[in-house]
């Protein structure tokens, strides 16, 4: 089977930058597409919510949140224990892996949809929920070891009112309030164009990831190994937890993908403020340079298989 064209856009950006092409995406376009994707994901989730029953959502939320608190703790233990990284760096990287990648989520839902695999309509809600715990755990660990002046008020803002959560939750609420009928005139922009915009954004991600690869050479062996092992382990855990929480196989595959993905929008900004002594290059190299492409090419199909296996 041919690779999904979305992944080819990513490759095009990657190759262009590695060959030192002058291809560049204006910063304002990058920001605009990111806003669009977050809002569109929220809206689509909200519209589907409006026409579906919310059976057992409470337990699922609790279970997925628990997963979101557990993965960064495990990640920290591995980074500190096996990798012997400094506390601050371990905590910061753990925070990135505890949080989620919205683009990976979008590619995964597209991948499932193109294979006819259904999933719960409210998965966008979990993207918003899972942005937070990883970041909190990362900061808490760092501050346990080096108790410093964390401006918790400022941080709560950064974390809970970052554009990711505001647009996802805002979109969910608007989509849910509007319902399918009132959403119809917004569909051409927020639904029909979605896959195309995602393709364009993946082209940009390819450019960004290629710039990050230079750092990879300096990173030694442990970090890349972690960045490959962590998504597989967390994906397996997510598939199992999702199935145990009663998600459909499609939903469990998405929970797995969320657990396996690492943040590069919300977490970097929050971590930079909260754990200044951590090197941002390390976490971005791992999250963006290794885990993100791994999930695109290998991870998503793998987590789907995990979920299928867990479903029995």
């Amino acid at each position, binding site marked *: 089977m041919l690779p999904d064209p979305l992944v080819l856009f990513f490759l095009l950006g990657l190759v262009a930058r590695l060959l030192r092409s002058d291809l*560049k*995406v204006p*910063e304002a376009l*990058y920001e605009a597409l990111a806003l669009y994707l977050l809002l569109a994901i929220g809206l689509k989730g909200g519209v589907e919510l409006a026409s579906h029953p919310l059976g057992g959502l409470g337990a699922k939320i609790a279970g997925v949140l628990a997963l979101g608190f557990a993965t960064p703790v495990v990640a920290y233990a591995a980074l500190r224990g096996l990798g012997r990284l400094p506390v601050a760096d371990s905590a910061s990287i753990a925070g990135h892996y505890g949080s989620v990648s919205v683009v990976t989520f979008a590619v995964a839902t597209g991948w499932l949809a193109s294979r006819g695999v259904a999933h719960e309509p409210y998965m966008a809600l979990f993207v918003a929920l899972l942005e937070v715990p990883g970041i909190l755990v990362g900061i808490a660990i760092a501050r346990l070891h080096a108790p410093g002046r964390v401006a918790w008020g400022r941080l709560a803002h950064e974390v809970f009112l970052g554009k990711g959560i505001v647009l996802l939750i805002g979109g969910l609420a608007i989509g849910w309030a509007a319902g399918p009928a009132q959403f119809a005139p917004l569909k051409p922009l927020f639904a029909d164009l979605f896959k195309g915009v995602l393709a364009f954004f993946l082209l*940009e991600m390819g*450019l*960004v990831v290629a*710039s990050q690869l230079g*750092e990879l050479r300096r990173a030694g062996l442990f970090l890349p190994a972690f960045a490959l092992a962590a998504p597989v382990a967390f994906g397996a855990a997510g598939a199992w937890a999702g199935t145990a929480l009663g998600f459909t196989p499609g939903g469990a595959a998405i929970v797995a993908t969320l657990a396996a993905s690492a943040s*590069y*929008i919300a977490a*970097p*900004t929050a971590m*930079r*403020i909260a754990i*200044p*002594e951590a090197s*941002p*290059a390390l976490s*971005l190299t791992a999250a963006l340079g290794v885990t993100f492409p791994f999930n695109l090419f290998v991870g998503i199909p793998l987590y789907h298989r995990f979920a299928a296996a867990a479903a029995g």
Partner: protein
Amino acid sequence: MDTHPRKLLVIIAEAALERELVADAKRLGALGHTVHDVRGGGRHGTRAGDWEADRSIELKVIATEAVAEAIARHVLATYCPDYSVTMFLADAQVLRPEKFP
């Protein structure tokens, strides 16, 4: 023309620090500030400004020597150890001294 000597403090820093730097400058006595986005490179590598974590800003504050130096000292102590920051002072002449007390 009647001009009055002041200091121009220029701080080039990671975009994540913008809010803090502006608040600190105000707290330490600056009555205003000006910011724009930049890209660049230095000891911490290239910052091309392609995406969130890669953005830099340039902050300008015109103030008396005392205020400018207080801000500079604070930035040096608070942010320079952990963040990409470049800073310099220059002489400036202003026409309305009451704007930069």
